């Protein structure tokens, strides 16, 4: 059970099926003394409705568009990428419609939309059919991301609508995002499991848990200069540049995959340091435009009870809990002007997460950080 739960892809929508059963889905609020989320969030509204689940919503720099992934394409049970106009509500599909996709992001330089996709896999249609048949059989399985080795990073060029392939390495390349100037892309690659000699242990891991090989990479906007930044055993993923481009934030799993924490580093991979040490699964970090704090998701309160937290950008204070509603709350993304927060939630009680948006009280967040107790000095670790 835990083995599959920890398969949280970098920024992927992580959905806790209702069918989990037992007491696992029950939120563990008792004794946490959590204040109500209305302290930070107001005018909560639901952004996505259509399809089984949606998530990973990221804004264009002017806030007028949001790109997201959703399982809503007729005949395709997997995520496809969609672009939503925040002004009119119009939605269009960006990705090819075939295969699996994930993790889109809009360039501040020219609006180009990057995402990862398996549509070039000759088996992609067959895999769609298999998944549809599986679901129609009425069986349930826990939501699980499979780190498809055919996943590569693509960009839809806004100037001419062409789809450009940026990575072609064997192995999962995904979870990409642009640098603020649109010149660089930071992403996750598991290509290591197909390169060089694997030890006996690594060979076994490659079969049961490819995410073990996840490392953070950067490349230029045209796909050139691909470079590996992390070298620590265990899954590194879900990277984003800081809003000023000064650093990169991501989350790092322990080698055994049982614990994840939020880390930051310089864009060249130096000065890697953790911001959290809950001993829980803390992931999906995103830096607020003020550069004052990082929003992330954690199951600190219980095995399957994910909530949104924030922590100061230096990781000097204890994190502050944001969401307090039953169900999954994660993948927080502030609006570019810092006055709103989008995130993925199952608070509506549905089987899959959907994207929500709320007004965000930045001053309340700063005040909460100021009154948060100090945390032990972050420890530096070798790269």
């Amino acid at each position, binding site marked *: 059970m835990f083995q599959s739960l920890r398969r949280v892809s970098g920024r992927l929508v992580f959905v806790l099926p209702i069918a989990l059963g037992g007491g696992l889905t029950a939120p563990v609020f008792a004794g946490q003394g959590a204040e109500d989320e209305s302290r930070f969030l107001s*005018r*909560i*509204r*639901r*952004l*996505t*409705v*259509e*399809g089984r689940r949606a998530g990973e919503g990221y804004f264009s720099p002017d806030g007028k568009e949001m790109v997201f992934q959703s399982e*809503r394409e007729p005949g395709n049970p997997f995520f496809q990428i969609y672009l*939503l*106009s*925040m*002004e*009119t*509500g*119009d*939605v*269009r*599909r960006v990705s*090819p*419609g*075939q295969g699996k996709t994930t993790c889109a992001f809009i360039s501040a330089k020219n609006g180009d939309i990057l995402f990862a996709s398996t549509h070039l896999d000759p088996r992609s249609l067959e895999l769609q059919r298999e998944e549809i048949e599986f679901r129609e059989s009425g069986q349930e399985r826990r939501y699980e991301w499979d780190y498809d080795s055919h996943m590569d990073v693509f960009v839809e060029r806004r100037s001419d*609508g*062409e*789809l450009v392939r940026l990575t072609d390495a064997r192995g999962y390349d995904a979870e990409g995002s642009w640098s603020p100037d649109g010149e660089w892309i930071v992403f996750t690659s598991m290509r290591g499991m197909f390169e060089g000699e694997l030890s006996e242990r690594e060979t076994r891991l490659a079969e049961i848990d490819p995410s073990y090989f996840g490392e953070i990479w950067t490349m230029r906007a045209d796909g050139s200069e691909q470079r590996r930044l992390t070298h620590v055993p265990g899954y590194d993923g879900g990277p984003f540049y800081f809003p000023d481009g000064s650093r990169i934030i991501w989350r790092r799993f322990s080698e055994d995959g049982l614990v994840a924490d939020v880390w930051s580093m310089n864009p060249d991979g130096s000065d890697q340091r953790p911001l959290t040490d809950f001993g829980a699964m803390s992931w999906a970090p995103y830096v607020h435009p003020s550069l004052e704090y990082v929003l992330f998701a954690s199951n600190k309160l219980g095995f399957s009870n994910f909530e949104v937290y924030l922590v100061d950008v230096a990781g000097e204070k204890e994190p502050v809990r944001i969401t307090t509603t039953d169900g999954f709350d994660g993948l927080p993304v502030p609006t570019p002007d810092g006055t709103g927060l989008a995130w993925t939630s199952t608070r*509506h009680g549905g089987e899959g997460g959907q994207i*929500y948006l709320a007004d965000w009280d930045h001053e309340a967040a700063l005040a909460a950080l100021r009154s948060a107790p100090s945390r032990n000095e972050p420890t530096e670790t070798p790269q």
Partner: protein
Amino acid sequence: MNRRRQTLIGVSLVLAPFLTLPAAGQTPEELRDDVLALTGPGTEGRAVGTPGAAAARRYLVSELEAAGARPLPGQDGLGIPFRFISGVEDRGSSLRAGGHKRFGSDQVRAFAFSETGEVRGELYFVGYGIRVPENAGVSYDSYAGHEVRDKVVVVLRHFPDGVEDETRSVLNRHADFRSKASAARDQGAAGMVMVTGPGSEGAGELAPDGFDISAPGSQGILAVSIDGAAGDRLFAGTGVSLAEVQRSLDAGEVDAGSFPLPGFATLAVDLERTPASGANVVGILPAADGSLDPPYVAVGAHYDHLGMGGGGSLNPHGPPAVHPGADDNASGTAAVLALARTVADSPLARPVLVGFWSGEESGLLGSRAFIRNDIRPDQLAAYINLDMVGRLEENRLTVQAMGSSSVWPGIVERANVPGGFDLALSDDPYLPTDSSAFNSESVPTLNLFTGTHTDYHRPSDTADKLNYEGLARIARFTGLVARRVAESDPVPEFVQVERAPETATSRVSLRAYTGTIPEYATEIEGLLLGGVMAGGPAETAGLRKGDVIVEFAGTPVLNIYDYMNALEAARIGEPLTVVFLRDGERHEVTLVPTARP
């Protein structure tokens, strides 16, 4: 690349993107003005068929006309009247038993569902007069072993006291006035006389007449209640008193209480059903190209409320008082009016039908009459209903009936990006509001609702308690939904949602499934099918929408009440016979109930 472009075109056919948003719409102040007009002096709670409702209607007609709305083709004006039965009058019912036992209207009250006429027959007491169908889990039959054909049965009101809880709930379901009348009718009795026993609550009192405005038809038998004194007299000469018999019955001895009573009875009922009329307000706003041709995008709200109180009031014991119904449903009416004005200024791709219904509080009288008599369902692309939308709290808007078309999730999502509500969504289209009338006729529906509150159906549902800013936003959101519907080509497809079993019949429904969709509140004798579930036993048996079931598993069916009772006899996998009328001809099919899918 090509594939992607092709599919994008495919998407745009379904939901054409629009680049311009409708005008901002009405201001909160304008919505308040409309609510104040609808709840103000002279409207008196807007009860169907009253001068108060007529005053509200005149306001709506003049406002809609000012916005440029046209009458529905074939109608003279925006007001469209409909007829209903507003009540029954007992013009003098009587019971005679032998020469010296004569009871007049002071001791005899006809049930509203009684036949009118006179019958004669021997008197026969049958205890509580309850027959529980065989496999309902409880065995109870007041008629077992007794022949009552052509006799006038005397029954006790209520059901035996002192039985176990589980038995109690089953008996309770078969102890209502209509069920007892049906049981007597099915046993061949000529009439039913009910008395409230000395051991029951309200001992000796006449029973209320049981009038149901949404199902005012006859139960097919003469049926009256009599007072306790008359009841006692009927037992004179039997050697036992009614009180003693009731005690035995309450102790669980079913057989203790069925025996002939002395005397030959003449039961006479003279009942008059009071015809009444109400009126809907319906206007058409032309499309952007000036077209007035269907299909229309329909948007509506009921404008009636409870008047001075009465049966629907949750303040029934208070003195009569104006129930202003500001939230229920001046709010929805004002929002639809606002939408109509906005659409008049910036028309949509299809004409918009605006409907204000009356008689909703009495059982969807106006909307049912409209969809049956005044329009063809296929002339409506979809129907969006607003009922109680004036109390937006914490930004939470409930949108119901999402399951009635596959287009709704996409349309509601797109409308809510500018709309900005924290949506609570539900698929169920079987709602206690006008949208149900349209769903019954296979029109995709949506219902908007901001939640119930402590002022619901009370004189305190006043205009000062509404959230007008929220109401204006809801009107605008409705406009965005309507716009998307107008741009849907082809029109939204209708999806038949399976009706969740109702509480009263859930035990039964969970056992055996027939896949019939009963039509409620019709004047037709029998059970009119509003539809059948695709692939369900009824469809397999050959039944279809429009058929009228008159007999089910050997039990005559005169109305929905009979049908619900008859359903209890259905068992999974056991074939039963359904007799029905189609185009006036009698047919018979075999239906095999299945387990609920």
